[in-house]
């Protein structure tokens, strides 16, 4: 059974139509990435799923219920805001204790997440003394401490440094494994989403352009490439009109066959160690579907 169902969803702000009738479903236990350029309608979609915005038309069901009129859903559904903010003069520790109790958890549960995100030293501080990054980490802790069935997250890693991003994705993996939590995550960091997402929804201009498991999406767009390990990557890349990525030559399958690679290598005097066929990256798929925006 899908944990999120969206049918014919439209959202208008005056005469501007931010969502133009989108449809998608998210199955339980999956990590689904929502990607798209700025203004695609990602945040609007997430806010409707979280009951912050009312749809202009269409149907939205989260765990079978309309999120606007069922605030009790938030016991099982956590929402991580893109720019989270907290009452500035309340202490981190006090808020976390009340937050745990508000969602029916033991007050000490929050401490586990503070430790996991390296926030223990900030427990006695008030929110006004927290950086944007730490505020973001804290929002993640508050969301996950309720052991939710579903987490809807809007750019959850936007304010985080690389170390904290790794901690975030560890927590996501842990939560999925231990609680079978479904994650619906909007992000601009496509390389990160590629590592964690089971499925991708690509949005642009208020419409869903594609929804599929990442591998399926890559093959359906016939976007496979060859990854060539060689001793002269620059020369071979130039000969094949490819690119050097991490010291290896990447060339699209449609641009060169195996025999083309062999000939080019002979021509430039390069020794080919290995040739692997790899699917398109999320970044490439994204560019193909929505352009270079």
């Amino acid at each position: 059974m899908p944990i999120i169902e969206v049918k014919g969803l439209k959202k208008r702000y005056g005469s501007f139509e931010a969502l133009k009738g989108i449809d998608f479903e998210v199955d339980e236990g999956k990590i689904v990435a929502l990607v798209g350029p700025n203004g695609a309608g990602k945040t609007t979609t997430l806010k409707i799923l979280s009951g912050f915005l009312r749809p202009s038309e269409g149907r939205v069901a989260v765990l079978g219920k309309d999120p606007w009129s069922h605030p009790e859903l938030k016991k099982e559904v956590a929402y991580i805001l893109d720019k989270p903010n907290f009452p500035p003069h309340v202490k981190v520790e006090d808020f976390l204790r009340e937050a745990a109790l508000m969602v029916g958890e033991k007050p000490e549960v929050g401490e586990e997440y503070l430790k996991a995100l390296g926030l223990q030293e900030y427990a006695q501080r008030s929110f006004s003394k927290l950086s944007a990054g730490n505020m973001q980490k804290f929002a993640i802790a508050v969301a996950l401490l309720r052991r939710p069935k579903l987490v809807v997250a809007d750019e959850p890693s936007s304010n985080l440094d690389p170390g904290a991003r790794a901690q975030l994705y560890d927590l996501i993996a842990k939560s999925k494994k231990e609680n079978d939590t479904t994650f619906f995550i909007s992000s601009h960091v496509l390389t990160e989403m590629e590592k964690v997402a089971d499925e991708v929804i690509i949005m642009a201009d208020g419409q869903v352009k594609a929804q599929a498991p990442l591998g399926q999406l890559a093959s359906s767009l016939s976007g496979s490439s060859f990854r060539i390990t060689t001793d002269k990557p620059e020369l071979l890349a130039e000969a094949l009109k490819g690119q050097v990525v991490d010291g290896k030559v990447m060339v699209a399958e449609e641009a060169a066959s195996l025999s083309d690679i062999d000939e080019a290598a002979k021509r430039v005097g390069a020794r080919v160690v290995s040739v692997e066929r790899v699917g398109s990256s999320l970044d490439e798929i994204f560019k193909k579907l929505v352009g270079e925006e």
Partner: protein
Amino acid sequence: MSVFWRFLKLSVQEDYRMPVAELFAFLMALAPLTLYASGVNYGVLKGSAAFSFLSSALGLAAFLFLILILKNVSFGIGADLEKGITNTFLTFPMSRAKYLAAKLVSGAVIPFVMFMLAPLPVALAFAPHFSDLGVLLLYWGIEASGMMVIIGLMVLVALATKKGSTSLIAGLALYFGSEFANAFAIFYAERGNRDLFYALSVLNPSELWTIHYSRFFGSFSVSTATASALTATSAALGVALLIIAFAAFERVIDL
């Protein structure tokens, strides 16, 4: 403890982290009555004397509490909407109506109860001198209805603009605007045209009762029936504005 009470606890913690102004206003309200009770004026206060005494003794405290309430409502509701703190709280399993109710209890009801409590012990302890406790109730009712109208409008402005500063300006403009307008309206009422004064009294009914009790304006007086009806209208308007604010927040307003 339910989510509502936990949220109210956090709101109170935020609104009253340094309650110096509240304490000052509370003592301000207490002081004149203590002075009276200790023997400055031993006349038995009834009816108009009791009302005049209360309005002069508590007038400044009422003003201070009103300013505190305006500050709490504009920052607690408008600024929280502006900064996204409201969204943070609404990620918890709590209805929008309960969120708004907790904000109003913390920002407005608690200071008003402090204002009500200040004169109560002294008035009760010295009841023989203050034989007309009904006037005290009336005074609280007048202050409450006037405040409700301003708060109702402020909350609507805060919800519509999602800005604390706009809401505060609206509240202050309404309060001081109605005070100025009342002064002009009384001037015209003295000359026979009372409609404007009565209309403005719905926003701020205290002048009605001051005139009713003092009969300061000679030929111009306000009957108990008129003053009561207009105060009830003011209270009804305040309640109606708050109901509209709750309904709009619960059913219409996007965050």
